[in-house]
């Protein structure tokens, strides 16, 4: 299990000490041309999460490679680049430019809710990018599609190496007094606690319907939340909104996760992967679990 940040939820150059708490840093989405992003107001908290409509603000692929990438490489944290665009050619162009030695993998942002242009068919984008890069390709999908399993399978057939699940879903918040949308763009992407069951369902489904490793994300704020995503079938976990309140969330979640999984009798965190699918699923090695009593006994021995 690796702990990542959700793309767009951390600026590693502004907060390098936070990036260094992660096993992998995922960049904000890079598009072919620079984008200033949406006008403010860009964020709003709601009772069950927060909305954002940042609008893929980024320096563009050329400046990213020339200016940001060398500095990100100095962090000493494995680096994934989130690749975005508005047409197949955009993804291909960015993927070609950022497939550098410093970059471990690419995450294709196929699901940003905050831009007007809709990316084309997921399978088409993945297949086209697959042709121009040897980097591992993670397809980041939204759960807000009619048939997520089919979308995930399309990504798999097209050559994706993994899935990042899930991106935000669209939500709206109205001002208390004026009843007008708070965000300048109207709607925005909903993240935080409300997204957690959505993410769990998406991970659960896609881990059954594809063989791809999954980075689970959506509302993870505690070790228990991370454990549940692993149990649903995620191999790795990303933290997003929780980083805003707690810059030390990654370290804390890692500690809590180890304690939670041990308390439930897993000899290590990775043994919890797929637990939600029961003993008949190929993802769970039946021999990997020990009884809670035995785990406690082992803990006692270790402490002694």
């Amino acid at each position, binding site marked *: 299990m690796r702990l990542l940040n959700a793309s*767009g*939820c*951390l*600026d590693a150059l*502004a*907060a390098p*000490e*936070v990036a260094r708490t992660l096993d992998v840093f995922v960049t*904000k989405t890079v598009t072919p041309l620079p984008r*200033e*992003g949406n*006008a*403010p*107001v*860009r*964020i*709003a*908290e*709601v*009772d*069950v*999460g*927060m909305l*954002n409509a*940042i609008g893929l*603000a980024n320096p563009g692929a050329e400046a990213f490679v020339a200016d940001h990438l060398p500095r990100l490489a100095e962090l000493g944290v494995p680096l994934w680049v989130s690749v975005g665009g508005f047409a197949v050619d955009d993804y291909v162009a960015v993927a070609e430019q950022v497939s550098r030695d410093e970059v471990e993998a690419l995450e294709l942002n196929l699901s940003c809710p905050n831009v007007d242009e809709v990316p084309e068919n997921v399978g088409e984008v993945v297949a086209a990018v697959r042709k121009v890069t040897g980097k591992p390709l993670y397809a980041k999908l939204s759960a807000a599609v009619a048939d997520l399993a089919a979308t995930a399978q399309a990504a798999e057939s097209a050559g994706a190496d993994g899935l990042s699940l899930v991106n935000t879903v669209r939500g709206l918040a109205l001002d*208390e007094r004026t009843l007008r949308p708070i965000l300048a763009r109207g709607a925005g992407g909903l993240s*935080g*606690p409300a997204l957690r069951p959505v993410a769990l369902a998406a991970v659960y489904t896609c881990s059954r319907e594809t063989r791809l490793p999954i980075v689970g994300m959506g509302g993870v704020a505690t070790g228990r939340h991370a454990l549940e995503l692993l149990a649903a079938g995620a191999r790795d976990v990303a933290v997003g*909104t929780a*980083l*805003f*309140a*707690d*810059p*030390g969330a990654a370290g804390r979640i890692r500690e809590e996760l180890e304690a939670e999984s041990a308390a439930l009798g897993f000899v290590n965190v990775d043994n919890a992967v797929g637990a939600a699918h029961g003993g008949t699923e190929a993802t769970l090695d039946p021999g990997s679990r020990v009884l809670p009593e035995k785990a406690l006994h082992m803990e006692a021995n270790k402490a002694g």
Partner: protein
Amino acid sequence: MLRRERRSVLAAEAVGPYTLLRVDRGELEPGTPGQFFMLEAPARVVPRPMSLCLAPPGELAFLIDPIGPGTRALCALQPGDPIGIVGPLGNGFRLDVERPLLVGGGIGIAPLPYLSDCLGRPPAVLGFRTVWHAEAAALVPNAEVVIEPTYVTEAMHAGHDVLACGPEPMLEAVRRLTPRAQLAWEAPMACGYGACYGCVVDVDGRLERLCLKGPVLAAA
């Protein structure tokens, strides 16, 4: 250091319509006047940015206007309640000024008491909507108070180095009068350290994250 500290609420005192929330300082540094802290409000998803109002020994105090669910939850905190806090963050006021004049409007007076302490209690001009709101002026020494429909710009004296915080129309008016002023701005923020990209404002024709560039910006 970017770390969420767990502190305790010492007191929550009413000041006109506002609440002065006193928090146990612990190892936290008060920072420069105009810098801010992210305060976690009970049951809310993201913390709220608050500039430091006062820094008495062992305390950090924040003046809060209960205008939304987060600020209302902060104002409802009781002595002994735990509170998550990150800071100080951002860039505060430059203190190398010769003839300081503090200018504040409404809840925008929040950073001025601490600023006044650090600058040796210079003169201040404070504007409020009502006499009730103006009770907060007691926190700022040597303050001249105006109530709407009189505006602070009508009471500002010439020849001063202006350090101002208040609503946007007030800051724009101050900027027009004194292009060399230092202005503390406000924007919705989820993180306070550049991660959420939410708090952008127009700085010289570009959208910049206020938490990193500000919240105190040169007027021109």
